[in-house]
């Protein structure tokens, strides 16, 4: 089921001459986990805004082409309802928290929707449980760590019951443990049926959760496919997208004549594949 559809979208920010996005055709289907990659300045954040339905109603500029959500034009939905209902988690979690306590933060969206008190309380509990932040509910928002803030922002998006959650470079300020925790959250969300769109520079640690990679370059969509085929493509180096180290190794091993069956999606997988090849060659 097509959730979001961008049809020949070209978008130029107000006051700029060069378009940030050029002739983008993109479909996001229900349940997918898509990663959007591309060098700095390739239009990734603009694409996020388009997918979240913020263009052109909130973000000013000239939009050509159409953006559809479940088959309906985004501008129309916005005009009728006032909101779209797609979750968007930006890079600086701190500037996305608008209230003074965590509980009030999670209540913010459902209160805006005019929901009754008991429903709001239910949603808060559910979202807090999903993100493991029950113990933070009564805390003040200005005394929390970056990782905690990020979880709170994701949880506050969940209270909207969005079908889709878009995240812009969520691993940027996380350490290794933090990325593992984020990975678990993504896996949980996928299991619950959410569609995930993640913009990332470096997906070494989370590549295995994605079904699809979309690569942008200078505002255009240049590659769109599954991780294995994208990362073995020769164009990536020219574009400037970081390839996970283990896929780099895979490619170099192949060039040296050591043929592994398929591109690995983790260093562990690579090691296993090497182990198998050795075992097979020794038993011959």
């Amino acid at each position, binding site marked *: 089921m097509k959730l979001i559809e961008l049809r020949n979208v070209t978008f130029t920010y107000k006051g700029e001459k060069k378009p940030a996005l050029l002739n983008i055709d993109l479909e996001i289907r229900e349940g997918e986990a898509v990663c959007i990659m591309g060098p700095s300045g390739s239009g990734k954040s603009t694409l996020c*805004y388009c997918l*979240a339905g*913020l263009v052109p109603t*909130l973000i000013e500029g000239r939009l050509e082409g159409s953006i559809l959500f479940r088959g309906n034009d985004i501008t129309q939905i916005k005009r009728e*309802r*006032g*909101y*779209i*209902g*797609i*979750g*968007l988690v*930006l890079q*600086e979690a*701190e*500037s*996305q*928290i*608008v*209230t*003074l*306590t965590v509980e*009030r933060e999670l*209540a*913010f*969206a*459902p*209160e*805006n*929707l*005019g*929901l*009754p*008190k008991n429903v*709001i*309380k239910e949603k*808060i509990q559910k979202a807090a449980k999903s993100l493991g932040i029950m113990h933070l509910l009564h805390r*003040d*928002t*200005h005394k929390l760590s970056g990782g905690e803030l990020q979880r709170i922002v994701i949880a*506050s*998006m969940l209270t*909207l019951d969005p079908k889709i959650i878009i995240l812009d470079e969520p691993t940027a300020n996380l350490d290794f443990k933090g990325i593992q925790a984020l990975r678990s959250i993504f896996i949980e969300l996928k299991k619950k049926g959410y569609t995930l769109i993640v913009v990332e520079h470096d997906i070494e640690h989370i590549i295995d959760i994605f079904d699809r990679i979309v690569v942008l370059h200078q505002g255009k969509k240049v590659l769109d496919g599954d991780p294995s085929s994208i990362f073995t493509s020769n164009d990536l180096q020219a574009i400037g997208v970081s390839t996970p180290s283990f896929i780099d190794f895979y490619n170099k091993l192949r060039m040296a004549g050591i043929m592994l069956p398929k591109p690995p999606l983790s260093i562990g997988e690579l090691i296993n594949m090497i182990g198998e090849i050795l075992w097979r060659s020794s038993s011959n």
Partner: protein
Amino acid sequence: MRTPSIIYSIFDLIRFEKKYTAFHKLDLRTRFIIVMCLVVLTIFFNNIMLLLCLVLTSSIILIIAKEIKRWLKNSLIVWVIMVLIFLINSFLTSIHHGTILALRFLSFILSISILTMTTNPDEVIALLTTLCSNKKIMASFMLSLRFTPIMVNEARKIMEAQEARGWGFKKRGVLRRLRPIIIPLLVRAFQIIHNVVITMDVRAFNSRTRRTTSLDQKLTMLDYIVMTISVAITIYLLLVI
């Protein structure tokens, strides 16, 4: 850049610290009424003994709220001003009058401190939300409370980053000297505002439906009792004296 300790102590008298005492359990409205009663009595009492009683009462409240130590720690400037008031007025009018004004000042500061030290900004927002139905006004108020400390923090980070590049080394005109701080601060402010606007929109702030609230803002029996007693005593004392 280190903040002078006098300024730090003034801020600390205003700063809220989360504690769980009997006094904190009272609703914000109750505490406000208590403090207002004290302030009103401070203004009208003209007797040294009575003013001392007020000072004692405020101190007892601070003790109950477990804030007396913090108050005393930061009270240097209060004592200094008190002495100044005493000296100046004793010289201009009489020692008696000077004492009265000094005590009045002390009582006033103590009462206000009770309020500032025990009030959580979140409670203020919560109370105002139930009273005011205009979501845009409420949002502005809440956002300013939320983001003022963040902007102060950003300014500090910018100063650190620029000091690490040698800013502050050569003395120039005030405006030129501040440019490396003001411009990044404005840039950061715009970036943060940009994110806030997007977040509010994504979380349906601009939806057409009427906003509801999930707050429980109830006044308990204790609140009513305390409020009634405070007001009653105040009125009685005003009439009698």
